[in-house]
């Protein structure tokens, strides 16, 4: 870790709510210009972590420094270096977009022509210039989300902290948000991005910290993380009708490490854990034939962050499909 390159350093962050440990000694850093993702399931401690980073929550232990300046819940000045995008839309619905931005801009010391220019710039970035004088209450959900991000960019923060900004957003707005974040990063803004969508972390972040139960369980670039499960590939096999002996046949096949069966009214699906998936395809097909199963679909599942999480924790990253 090069101190002169580090923008944000979090060391041993701890926070409990009663007996429940939300964050238990989490450490990470974000370098200048980096897009760092905190990936984890709901309840992993991501929001609690960035609440401590932004000085919104009193921590039980650990430290947060931004450009070498300590941040806690009493900090005032250094907070101007952060642009915070809350998980929920945090705007005044009875005010127009321009009025919202003017208020938040003034809180960061902007005024006069500079404020006007910055408002125009972020409205342009959020593609809301034409609707700037409408009340936020009249905006669609996607437009509110974009304005929610724009409000955090007015003062050109060094670090942009986004807490699951795409939850509940339509695919088009989601794409727009991700592209905006990427563009900001390329313009020099450092990003701290929390999500439970592995595709977003994979697509957006230079470095990813995988968190679970308030602990950092793995950290690195996408390739580094996937490398953790390179020796564990999956073959997904779907059959038309249930074949009672198929699971046993697959488990007995040489090179197969585990088989997970998922049978319902629509399809019979088998997840076969192997070492080298492509080399094992013939073996799996032969086992299916021996069991009298008709293969409807067969695919090699490339290792991804979901697999990494499953490998490290034994549970799925997301509850929903």
């Amino acid at each position, binding site marked *: 870790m090069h101190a002169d390159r580090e923008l944000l350093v979090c060391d041993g962050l701890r926070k409990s709510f009663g007996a429940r440990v939300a964050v238990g000694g989490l450490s990470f850093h974000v370098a200048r210009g980096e897009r760092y993702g905190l990936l984890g399931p709901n309840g992993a401690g991501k929001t609690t972590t960035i609440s401590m980073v932004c000085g919104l929550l009193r921590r039980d232990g650990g430290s947060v420094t931004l450009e070498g300046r300590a941040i806690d819940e009493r900090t005032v000045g250094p907070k101007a270096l952060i642009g915070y995008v809350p998980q929920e839309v*945090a705007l005044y619905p009875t005010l127009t977009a321009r009025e919202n931005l003017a208020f938040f801009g003034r809180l*960061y010391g902007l005024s006069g022509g500079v404020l006007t220019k910055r408002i125009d710039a972020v409205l342009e970035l959020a593609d809301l210039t034409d609707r700037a004088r409408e009340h936020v209450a009249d905006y669609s959900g996607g437009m509110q989300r974009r304005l929610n991000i724009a*409000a955090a960019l007015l003062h050109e923060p060094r670090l942009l902290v986004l807490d699951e900004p795409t939850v509940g957003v339509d695919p088009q707005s989601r794409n727009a948000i991700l592209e905006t974040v990427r563009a900001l990063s390329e313009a020099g803004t450092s990003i701290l991005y929390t999500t439970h969508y592995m595709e977003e972390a994979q697509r957006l972040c230079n470095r990813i910290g995988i968190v679970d139960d308030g602990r950092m369980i793995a950290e690195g670039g996408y390739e580094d993380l996937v490398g953790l499960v390179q020796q564990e590939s999956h073959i997904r096999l779907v059959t038309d009708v249930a074949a009672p002996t198929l699971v046993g046949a697959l488990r007995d096949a040489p090179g197969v490490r585990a088989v997970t069966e998922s049978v319902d009214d629509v399809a019979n699906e088998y997840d076969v854990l192997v070492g080298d998936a492509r080399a094992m395809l013939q073996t799996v097909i032969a086992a299916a034939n021996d069991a009298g199963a008709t293969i409807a679909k067969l695919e090699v599942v490339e290792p991804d962050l979901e697999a990494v999480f499953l490998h490290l924790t034994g549970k799925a990253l997301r509850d929903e499909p």
Partner: protein
Amino acid sequence: MSSLFIVAGNELRQRLRDRSALIVAFVAPLTLTALISLVPFESGFHASFVVADEDAGILSTVFVDDVLGSAEIREVADIGEVDSIDAARREVDAGRADAAFVLPAGFSDDALSGAGTGITVVVKSDKPIAGAVARSIGSGFSARLDAYRIASQAAEDTGSAPPTLDSAASGTGVIDVVPQGAGGRELTSADYFAPAMAIFFVFFAVGTGARSLLTERSNGTLTRLRASPLSARTLLFGKALASFVIGLVSMLVVIGASALLLGARWGDPVAVLGLIVAVTLVATAITWTIATFVTTEEQAVAFTSLVAVGLGLLGGSFFPLALAPERLQRLASLTPNGQALQGFTDLSIDAGGAALTGRLVVLVCIALVVGAVALTRSHRLVER
């Protein structure tokens, strides 16, 4: 300091967009004042009495003709005559009279000789004010008779001229149901209810500001504010400043409109402004304290309403305190509403200048004490 005004300005802008807040702060107090003022304050009390003069002597005639027949009594009561105590009771029982006076046979002779006698007052239980007025008229006349006897005895002892019987009938000040101050000007309905409603509604007007932090929390903007370079204290004082300004403007609008439209008289503008500032400070402190004890906007609305109505009832916002029992009048002086309302009505009739300073001190002390409670607990509003 500038951040404080930025927060206050944003709060005021939002309140101006909130029509319900405008109604509570301006429309409701004016409308209620106008409606209540439709009932003339001076004729708020009127009774129907009957008198049974079984004596027909010199003193009973004075009572019937000069006391009950006086212009002051006729202004507030209709007087009828019946033959006997039984007839008087029937009139009262049937509801045709609110109270009856019975002067027994031999009343004049017994009274003049100093023997025990008295006027019987028959009252109806569901007309307590009329009953109280009737008793006061009777006891007032008895007291004057005593004075007459003492004066007559003294004149006889000293050999001077004896007093006339007319002196026993003079003066009927016991029926002052209309509040009248030392300044001598009579209070009108608008004079009383305009400040009464302004004080009552200022709690609701400033309450919207106190609740706004709870609103900010529920819509997520509080988190964004706390992530900005803004201290918790600046945020709180900015919001409180906006509350105070809303309350102040609400009262000023009610004052101006009630003076122009309803003819309410407010008195010395500087003193009135002092009272407005003091009572708005109290209302701001009380509503902010309430906000620190609750967790939702709904709870804040409920508790603010409870406190505002309670203080309004005790403090005389809904009925003239002069009509209330003495115990309630004493209790009213312990409430900010009562102190402020008495101050406003005193100013309206050009009286109570000396007492005003004391009232201002009491109000400011209440604001400081309650405000200190709000301040020590205010971190809960921002951090929880």
